[in-house]
């Protein structure tokens, strides 16, 4: 039966997928099915968000992870034969999607940033390639077409409480061979840099974790937030990884971006393309960041930043 499926681990991500799911399903009059974990909310919110059918996944035992659902969902998909399955591009979601695609012997567009249906019915999808240096347009000739969609690609679906739909529940799956033996929740940043109007980005040019204060001072002065490159969050763990900007992190679109000791590799620059004014402080005049920037200071950030702070204080009267 034709239709669009959406699958997400989290409520807000499911609501984002419903926006695009609905957009693709309505013109051709097919159903939208939302497959979501049962979080005790009866599933009506997904119907209000645009689903015609909600499949609630029963809570898993403590030592089970999302993987356990794979055989069940694959069997459901074989039975229902949807045209399109959209999954949220979270770590578990991306892994799940690739394995689902393998089981259903079909293609998967990973990290899909845009998709539309052509007049002839073909779904055309876009994704970034070569670290963000290129946009790749792809299609998938087999059914179902599967895509993972990064968080925040689409706005959450507005709620229409008058909508009707069906809700059913799937019983817990048998355990998978992969057993969860511990969970550690991590520190999350309290700020949302994706909405910040100024972002000061910390790169490997910072020598010590304490030095991030230099960036923070600048951020406070211009009313912005501190973000970072992937090595800072992931290799050095100096900042939480929801502050990592770029291909594997978040996209930011501030009025002002200032990179301090950021080399400007393509995977990072991809995440700041939407910034209105891009500035960089780097001691290497050949650093690629200067090609992506509007304004740049060639110099040592430890020397330049305090002077910049002083000058900004003068200029803004703070």
């Amino acid at each position, binding site marked *: 039966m034709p239709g669009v499926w959406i699958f997400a681990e989290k409520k807000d991500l499911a609501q984002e997928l419903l926006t695009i799911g609905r957009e693709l399903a309505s013109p051709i009059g097919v159903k939208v099915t939302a497959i979501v974990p049962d979080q005790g909310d009866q599933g009506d919110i997904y119907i209000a968000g645009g689903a015609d059918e909600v499949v609630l996944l029963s809570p898993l035992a403590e030592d089970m992870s999302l993987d356990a659902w794979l055989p069940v969902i694959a069997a459901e998909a074989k039975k229902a034969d949807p045209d399109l399955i959209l999954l949220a591009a979270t*770590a578990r979601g*991306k*892994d799940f999607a690739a394995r689902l695609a393998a089981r259903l012997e079909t293609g998967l567009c990973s990290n899909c940033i845009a998709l539309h249906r052509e007049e002839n019915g073909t779904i055309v999808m876009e994704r970034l390639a070569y670290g963000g240096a290129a946009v790749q347009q792809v299609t998938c000739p087999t059914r179902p077409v599967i895509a993972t969609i990064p968080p925040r690609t689409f706005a959450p679906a507005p709620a229409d409480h008058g909508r009707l739909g069906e809700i059913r529940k799937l019983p817990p799956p048998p355990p998978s061979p*992969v057993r969860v033996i*511990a969970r550690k929740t991590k520190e999350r940043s309290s700020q949302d840099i994706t909405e910040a109007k100024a972002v000061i980005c910390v790169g490997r040019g910072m020598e010590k974790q304490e030095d991030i204060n230099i960036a923070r001072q600048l951020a406070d002065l211009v009313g912005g937030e501190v973000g970072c490159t992937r090595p800072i969050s992931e290799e050095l763990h100096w900042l939480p990884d929801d502050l990592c900007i770029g*291909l594997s992190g978040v996209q930011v679109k501030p009025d002002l971006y200032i990179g301090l000791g950021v080399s400007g590799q393509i995977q990072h620059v991809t995440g700041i393309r939407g910034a209105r004014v891009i500035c960089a402080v780097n001691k290497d005049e050949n650093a690629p960041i*200067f090609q992506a920037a509007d*304004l740049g200071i060639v110099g040592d950030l430890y020397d330049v930043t305090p*002077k910049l702070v002083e000058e*900004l204080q003068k200029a803004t009267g703070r």
Partner: protein
Amino acid sequence: MPNIVACFKWVIDEAYIRKGPSGTLDFSAVDYKISDYDRNAIEEAARLKGFHGGSVTVLTAGAPAASKGVKDALSRGADQAFFAGDPTFNQLESSQTAAILGEIIRSRIPYDLIICGEGSSDQYAQQVGPRLAENLGIPCISYVQKLTIGADGRIIAERRVEDGVEVVEAPLPVVVTVLPEINTPRIPGVKDTLMASKKPVVTIKKEELPPVGAARLQTLGMTATRMERNCEKFAAMPEGIARFVEALQKRGVIN
């Protein structure tokens, strides 16, 4: 003692891609490299071997020119390499790569643990590891930042998820995909390079493999993105910094 297979991809170094006329990609000045995170995969295999013994096999499918990558991989602590080289293997799609790697592993390499990078630096589709696991019918643990093999031959992996870390345990064999923070890849020295050329390489021809299916995902086009801006540079001197701040004011981004 575990037999470890590390898979890698020989890719275009994206830093050398230029934007050509009318949005095309200019590959004329490119260089090649072992995909960034695949270096972490090979390093992790070598590290685990150092701990538990066993063997490290590196494996790739690609264009014949990827033989350079095979040598590079062998200089990073591997014992032997398997290389499926063919001109038609140049632009493989994830499902095709996973099929070829799966076939070679199943038919030719004893394995307990297969390690892949989290995603390749060219396509970054992040599919080969999980698809490979499905092809072999074994579990997959993706986005791993720490890996240990227990005394009972089970693997313990810390995998990174949005809300934190999930520590999981599974019986071998498994496929694991690794994040860059799992280790720091070595920089091979002259001696490593010399030793690499003496290590066995099993070359597999396309004809020795079952026919490779069509790409599951078809590329319609590639357009270069616009990244370049006209950077105005300022000196790190008091006047330079003052002019920089003026420029910010003029653009209305500070007030």
